[in-house]
């Protein structure tokens, strides 16, 4: 551009052409992605913005929304099920360290060169191919206290049996068990990360006489910390949205005794069963803020435990 301003005339005209061509290219590009832009505005951004407005309304879906200010939010704080569902969801955060421990542990075992390695990898990955709904149905049978496989095995081993999903104390751990069974997706990501750890670091550690534990702690974990970080962040968001398993596996839904009434399940009930869409929108925004805060905390802390290759 600076050239064009110094030498008016011909150059200006070519510059004009260039700008026009650039604009044309931009327009063509926009035209090509316009279906996505349209979809994003109409089906994602639009509803998100409208849901902010609706969260301040008494909106019963069939009648127009009525502005009620902060009423929905105020009510939520006095709603015992809001707190119950929040604490049920918080309990599921136990799954985060468990998932990392089991997923990473499995990945490390499967990273070792043993015979039938590809076979083992396939076997452990296989459950995550099963859709959540199908695996939930399957686990309903495994965890059946009377005729299920789990209790049959415990009985054989002369161990005390468990009521699994039928008892308010063991229902959430039972669901976690099912989730850990389907850990394959996370495991594969850890496995890929493990294979990306530079070999020379291990060699250097060997020369320094490091034990295998020291190698895991000082080489492996720091090297794959960006992946662990990614898994923690997506895990947090996923747990806040915990829904499907409870929706399918519990009778009455969220039972027994509201022990599996997770936040998203309660939100769904308000929105689609109780005609309280405004209330549900308020719940959704509170969930968004909580997830955002939790994620921010993890991000802030990441400087202390996540190592990127170029920085350290």
């Amino acid at each position, binding site marked *: 551009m600076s050239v064009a301003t110094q030498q008016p005339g011909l150059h200006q005209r070519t510059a004009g052409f260039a700008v026009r061509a650039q604009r044309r290219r931009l327009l063509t590009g926009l035209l090509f992605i316009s279906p996505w832009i349209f979809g994003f505005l109409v089906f994602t951004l639009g509803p998100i913005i409208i849901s902010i407005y609706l969260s301040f309304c008494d909106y019963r*879906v069939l009648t127009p929304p009525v502005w009620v200010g902060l009423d929905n939010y105020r009510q939520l704080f006095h709603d015992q099920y809001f707190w119950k569902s929040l604490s049920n969801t918080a309990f599921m955060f136990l799954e985060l360290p468990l998932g990392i421990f089991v997923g990473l542990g499995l990945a490390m075992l499967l990273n070792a060169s043993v015979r039938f390695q590809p076979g083992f990898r396939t076997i452990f990955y296989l459950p995550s191919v099963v859709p959540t709904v199908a695996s939930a149905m399957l686990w309903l049978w495994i965890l059946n206290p009377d005729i299920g496989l789990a209790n049959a095995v415990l009985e054989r081993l002369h161990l005390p049996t468990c*009521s699994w999903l039928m008892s308010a104390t063991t229902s959430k751990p039972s669901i976690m068990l099912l989730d850990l069974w389907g850990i394959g997706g996370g495991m594969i990501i850890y496995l890929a990360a493990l294979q990306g750890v530079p070999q020379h670091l291990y060699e250097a550690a060997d020369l320094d006489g490091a034990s295998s534990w020291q190698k895991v702690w000082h080489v492996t974990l720091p090297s794959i910390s960006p992946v662990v970080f990614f898994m923690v962040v997506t895990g947090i968001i996923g747990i806040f949205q915990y829904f499907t398993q409870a929706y399918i596996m519990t009778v009455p839904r969220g039972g027994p005794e509201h022990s599996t009434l997770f936040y998203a399940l309660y939100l769904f009930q308000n929105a689609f069963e109780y*005609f309280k869409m405004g209330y549900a929108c308020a719940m959704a925004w509170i969930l968004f803020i909580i997830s955002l805060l939790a994620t921010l905390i993890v991000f802030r802390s990441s400087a202390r435990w996540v190592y990127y290759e170029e920085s350290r």
Partner: protein
Amino acid sequence: MRRTVAVAAIGLVVFLAAGCQRFDVDVPQGRTLITVWSGWTGEEEQFFTEAVKAFNAAQDRIFVKNMSTQEDDGKIMRALTAGVPPDCFFLWEPSYIGALAANNALMPLDHFLKETGPPLERLIPGSIKQGYYRGHYYAMPFLVDAYALYWSKDAFRQAGLNPDRPPRTLKELEAYTKRLTIRQGDKIKRLGFEMPGFNIVAVLFGGHFFDPQRNRITTSDPRIVEALTWYKHMFDLQGGAQRIDSFSQGYGAYNSANHQFFTGKVAMMISGQWWAGYCKRYRPDMDFGVAPLPYPDQYPELEGTTYLGGNFVCIPRESRHPREAWQFLRWMQTYRAQVLFASLMRGVPNYRPALRDPALTSGDRWNEAFGVVCRVANHPNARFFPALPVNLLYMNELDSAAQYAARGTKTPARALADVQRRVQKELESYPGYRAAARPGGRA
């Protein structure tokens, strides 16, 4: 290039327009097309289509077309929200009636009823009243559902009971249950009596869920507390609620030959009139009996009490042809339509003269069993859940309360007081239910 784009654009427009076009069945000349949405699928959809065909053949002004919504009221909710509902629709879940009426989505049927009938006294007492909300009728059943006691005569014989003498009172039911339940150590082998939903038990004790005079939710009604106390007692009698929940998790599919009643895991149960048909289909060799529900010994006036439900048809306020839709609804209440549909669908006719039609209630033992339930449905003690805008919440809360009480986590009185408080609060958020001037409450 430009031409290609133009051609593509025209093609797209034509394609979209074609997509928007309605692929209607051939509507005979001069007839008004009425679309009805219903949730029946498979065989039941066929039955309803038969009924629709009979209506189309019976007159020459209106042509009804059925669209199956696949057992999903959500589609109707979305259509109502979008302001493009069908001319009339069936609700799968009667609990929605109150909410829809309260939100002004349904057309009141009162003036139609006044103009063309049917006379309300010709309908069984608990049928159209299920669609009654704050002074208006909003919904009408084609057929109703009614509950009765089913028992396995083989199980009775094994336990040394007279197979032709069902329990008539709750005390008797309790004694029978004790004798019919088989336990082996910690495990249940056979349940004497499978507990029904708590809403049915509450009605058995003469409990009322709502007081229309005071606009109050009345879950703390002493009768309902008494019912829940008995409910827990019956669970404890057979091994405890948690054990029984575990046992019933291993049941086979409901609509199949693997049902616990057919596999001998349950000796007595409460089910609807359709159960006789299931017995015929899945275990034609089974020796079973049907009787009215037992009543509490201390309240003999409650003899004959049952619980009614059903699928209800409504005309949305935005229906384009409400008069024609009404013609279809009105036809459903004729003798012919009732017997035709009841013979196929095995629902209880709600038009009283049709209840004793020999085609429905005699011929074989399954028809006779069906006849027993028809008589039960027509009893003045037949009850139902009143239409309220908060029914789905109310039902969920009742289920939870029953679970808390049955497992002993909460006392029956406490569990029910919790339901009352929560549902009442929700109800008061609807105009017309707002508490007048309660101290501390907002107007």
